[in-house]
């Protein structure tokens, strides 16, 4: 698809550089259009996004790591439109990231401090990983300071806060009972502050890209639900957009891995697919750039519900999902449905007439016949 087909042809794009990172202007505009579509915005917004992304003043980003596996960063590393380097070199200014920074130790901590002071009120804070709270938060320390204190400190001057991944969003695998380190998500630590959560294990990289670009473009986070999740990505159940849904409706299920139904692409509900209770845009946005139309369910694995707090690490993979789209239930016949034709005025009238005619005829005859006791027999 060409950018010119997306409503951009009428717009002046000359101020967008011809080459951005590894992308041509055309490819860059296509990327921005894609992001606009992910956000559910019109194609004209793509230009705004492109303008925001090419702004000389690249927004600084502070990326903190708590209790995590760096899987979220890894998934972002594998996004290829744009590639990570074009993202961090041309779109944002990644001032602090423990995995990606070339510098280390006191040097990098100093860069972080400097950036936070210089860009106070302007930088974006991204937190990856959960925050342990037990025993004063000693279970995760960086530079002799607990991650809890790092997060609170960085949040002070942040223009926006993004919790990246399930751990940062609600505690993730660390918070699974018995939760030995008392780990929680960022919203729990920064109560009262707006935290955009991008749950997922790992989350879809395009969901965070879209969120970041939304912040850059409109200077406010996208519309969020009550858990802080952007609605464009987490507004619907996997079940609602799943390509295997018709099989569910028709009662065609894979019963075991590798059986005939599984090979035929039937619904994975019986294998424990959590799609019916998991909110995410995986069936629409797909996942992980490994090829077209690919996401876990498409490859034949049931959804494990990685975005949902009480599902992914608490419910066994084979356990059946609660089908949420049916709550509260609609489109079912009720126990008592009105059926059959009741009384109609015409029918009621007719019955009245007939009864009246019978009684009338009876009365007429009664009036006619004699009232004398026992007539004389003719015999």
């Amino acid at each position, binding site marked *: 698809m060409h950018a010119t087909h997306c409503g951009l042809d009428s717009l002046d794009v000359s101020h967008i550089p011809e080459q951005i990172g590894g992308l041509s202007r055309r490819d860059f505009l296509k990327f921005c259009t894609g992001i606009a579509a992910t956000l559910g915005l019109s194609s004209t917004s793509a230009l705004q996004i492109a303008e925001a992304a090419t702004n000389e003043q690249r927004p600084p980003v502070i990326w903190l790591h708590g209790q995590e596996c760096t899987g979220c960063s890894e998934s972002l590393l594998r996004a290829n439109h744009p590639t990570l380097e074009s993202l961090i070199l041309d779109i944002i200014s990644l001032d602090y990231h423990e995995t990606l920074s070339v510098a280390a130790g006191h040097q990098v901590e100093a860069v972080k401090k400097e950036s936070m002071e210089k860009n106070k009120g302007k930088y974006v804070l991204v937190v990856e990983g959960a925050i342990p709270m037990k025993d004063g938060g000693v279970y995760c320390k960086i530079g002799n300071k607990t991650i809890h204190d790092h997060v609170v400190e960085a949040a002070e001057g942040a223009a926006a806060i993004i919790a990246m991944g399930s751990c940062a969003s609600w505690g993730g695998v660390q918070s699974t009972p018995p939760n030995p380190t008392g780990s929680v998500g960022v919203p729990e630590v920064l109560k009262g502050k707006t935290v955009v959560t991008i749950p997922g294990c790992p989350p879809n990289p395009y969901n965070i890209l879209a969120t970041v670009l939304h912040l850059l473009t409109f200077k406010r986070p996208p519309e969020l639900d009550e858990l802080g999740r952007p609605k464009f990505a987490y507004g619907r159940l996997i079940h609602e957009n799943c390509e295997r849904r018709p099989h569910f409706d028709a009662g065609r299920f894979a019963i075991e891995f590798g059986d005939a139904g599984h090979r035929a692409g039937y619904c994975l509900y019986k294998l424990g697919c959590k799609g019916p209770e998991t909110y995410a845009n995986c069936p629409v946005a797909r996942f992980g750039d490994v090829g077209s139309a690919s996401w876990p369910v498409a490859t034949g694995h049931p959804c494990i519900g990685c975005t949902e707090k009480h599902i992914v690490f608490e419910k066994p993979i084979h356990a059946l999902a609660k089908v949420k789209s049916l709550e509260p239930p609609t489109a079912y016949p009720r*126990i*008592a*449905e*009105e*059926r*059959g*034709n*009741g*009384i*109609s005025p*015409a*029918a*009621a009238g*007719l*019955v009245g007439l*007939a009864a009246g005619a*019978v*009684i009338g005829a*009876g009365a007429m*005859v*009664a009036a*006619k*016949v*004699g*009232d*004398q*006791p*026992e*007539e004389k*027999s*003719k*015999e």
Partner: protein
Amino acid sequence: MSAHADHAAPVGGRILTVPFLILGMFALIAAYFLILRFIFGLEAAANINNGYPWGIWVTMDVVVGTAFGCGGFVMAFLVYILNKGKYHPLIRPAVMAGLFGYTLGGMAVFFDLGRYWQMYNVFLPWYMHFNSVMLEVALCVATYVVVLWIEFTPVFLEKIGFNNLKQKLEKVLFFFIGLGVLLPVMHQSSLGTMMLGAGYKLHPLWNTVLLPLLFLSSAIIMGYSIVIFESIFAAAGLKRPQETHILAPLSNILWWLLLFFLAVRIVDLLWRGVLPNLDWQGFWFLVELALFVIPLAFLSKNHQTARVLFLSGFCLLLAGTLYRINVYLIGFTAGTSGWNYFPSVPEILVTIGVFSFEIMLYLIFVKKLPVLASPQH
């Protein structure tokens, strides 16, 4: 039948009178809707549904219609079994009423049956299900229709002058008379048993294991009532002398039967501790009860006038009809909630047409055949 029948004679007169043509019109309307029913299915003419599978066709045409036809067997019992010869003039019209009631009841069954083309299955031994109340009703009614036609055959033979054959038939008629009393006793009671199969769907006011007894006794009451009603109605309508002298003693029998019926009905209700509520069913129960009780008061006098007799008979016919409607329709509630039923206009017109047709047949028969006792006698 016996020698007394000789006194009967055709009434004579024109067939195509105005009332006859009006009745004919109703019959034609019914025929039209029945054609629709056979082309498009029952829904095209009737409101019956899976909540209320039996509508007024079953209730009125079959259950009430055959009860109207009970005059034949109750009079046969009185005249031929109990040997009360004085009632003999009433027997032929009574048997004829039975003939029409049952024949048309059978016809109504035909157009109410969903798979009428397999109706003969009830006569195939390998399909018969002997525990079914309905099989008993079906076989009894079918046999009784044949018996009624045999009982009535002497009238035809008399008309065409085959007196020799008539005498031969009358020699063996006693067997059919016996059978003709037994069969209605069997199926009229079973029409009551039939609704016990509905279980909880039948309202407690009518839901009793005594239903067969109540149906049988109310059928006998209706049988005597129709004889009284028909006699007085015919006398008034055809301008013939009243037969009050034989109807009055008949009404005494009726009074005792009525007392028996009401006693059973009320004792049963009291024993089961069921009282009518202030609702739709309760209302119709009270109307039904009133219609039974009023004639009981009327008939308690010793010397009845034709008018009182007529009104009592009329009242009891309404009472018996309402009792049957109550059991089959008003007291019946669909097992799953949400169902509605009230007869549709075509459905009612078909029932009106069936009864009109019955009266038309009556008029033709009494005018052309020796049915009514001759007034000259």
